[in-house]
Structures are given as structure tokens and as C-alpha cells.
């Protein structure tokens, strides 16, 4: 899995390419935590356009970051979900607690 990070104002944009499972979850957790520790980002946008697969391990990492952001009054959103990822988001209830957008621009406007 490839992780691309970019700060846009105070939003950390995380672009993922590849598969997010138990094997790749740690790398994503570490990458986002390191950025949040710098106390610059107040929100996180996950751009999942290049993510071809995600299972409950990926869900755990996303939920963990969502909780941290909630505690610091930050926000989290996701955009560009493919069909498989969308399904996992829906089944787990993530779509009810997090903004889901068709593209990055719309998501950034809302964060």
C-alpha cells in the first residue's frame, strides 16, 4: 500500500493506493499519528480512490483515528470510495458517523 500525505490548510489529506488490511494497517496508523502529533492538522480527509481492498483491520485503523480526532474536536471525512470499500463502510456504520464525498474538493469544502 502506498500512502501519500499532504497538508491543505489545516486538513491532512491522506491518499491511499493498494490494499488496506492487517498487514498494511500499522504503516497507515503510524503515518497519520505522526502527523497528528505535530498539532497542525485539525481534520483528516481520506482519499481512497486508489484503494482496491479493505477489510475489518483497515476499519480499525480508520475508527481509531476518528476517535482521536473526535476527542480533539477535529473532523474526519472520506472520499472516492470504490464499491468494495463503500460496502465495508456501510456495513460497519462508518457512513453514519463520517462525511463521505464523491471527490476531494467537495470534502475539503465541508471540513
Amino acid at each position: 500500500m502506498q500512502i501519500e500525505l499532504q497538508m491543505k490548510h489545516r486538513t491532512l489529506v491522506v491518499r491511499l493506493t493498494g490494499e488496506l488490511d492487517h498487514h498494511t494497517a500499522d504503516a497507515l496508523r503510524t503515518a497519520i499519528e505522526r502527523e497528528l502529533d505535530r498539532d497542525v492538522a485539525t481534520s483528516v480527509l481520506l482519499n481512497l480512490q486508489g484503494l482496491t481492498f479493505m477489510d475489518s483491520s483497515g476499519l480499525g485503523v480508520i475508527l481509531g483515528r476518528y476517535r482521536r480526532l473526535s476527542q480533539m474536536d477535529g473532523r474526519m471525512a472520506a472520499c472516492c470510495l470504490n464499491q468494495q470499500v463503500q460496502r465495508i463502510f456501510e456495513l460497519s456504520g462508518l457512513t453514519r458517523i463520517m462525511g463521505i464525498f464523491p471527490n476531494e474538493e467537495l470534502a475539503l469544502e465541508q471540513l
Partner: protein
Amino acid sequence: MQIKNTMLLSFPSFSQNESFARQAVAAFALQVGDWTLVELDEIMTAVSEAVTNAIIHAYDQTVGEVRIRANILEGDGIEIIVEDDGIGIDNIKQALEPMFTTKSQQERTGMGFSFMESFMHELVVTSAPNQGTSVRMVKWLAANSDTQG
């Protein structure tokens, strides 16, 4: 249940094998017929959850063998059995409950078995403490799932 073809996969419980395992099973499943992409995603997700459980829970910090047996079934279905020789499950009923996890501090969601149940037509978990775990799943092609129940 008539078996038309069979395969056995064995690998150590390294996390890099999770991706290999789900893709290998999906490739074998193509012998069943024309699955939709959604159905193949469902098979891959279910296998990924079962294999991850074996790696994280059954073997925890140790390394052991994970075996996947897959059978192509008469009537356009696939049977997938994921087995380990790990610590086993004490309370299977509890383990199958949505959101139940023994490792919440490791950001486990407890959704693994829920996904397997949602994505496959049959799910049977056999286990006992220190006796390993066997997860048996069956999926039928959507066109046939009504008749197969």
C-alpha cells in the same frame, strides 16, 4: 455435496500472506463460474478476515501453520475451510457477536465474523481451547443461491 475440484494451501502465519491467501482463493473460485465483481470481493473479504483471525488470535505473537482447503462444488458453489492449530476459541457464540473482540486495545473492531456471515451463505466455526480453529464457509453463485438456500 459433490466436489468437482479441490485445492490445499498452507503457509506460515505471516501477515504478508493475507493478501496472497485471498487472491489465491479468488483465483481458484473463478472455476465455479461467472461471479460478479461484488461476489469476488465478498469471497476475498471473508477469506481475509478468517486468515487475519488465525494470524492475530490463534497464533498471536507466535508463528504457526494456516491451511486453506477450497472445494469447487456441484451446483456452482465454493466451500472454503480456513484452519489453524492455534489457541482456539473458548466461547464461539460470543466470538461471533458483532463488535465482540478480545483485542480492542489493538484497534480490532470485532467485525471479522460479521463480514464472513454477511458475505457468505454458510459459516460454521469449530474450535476448542488449544485445539485450533476451523472456519468453514460456503458461497453459491447468486443465480443459484435461492435454490441452494
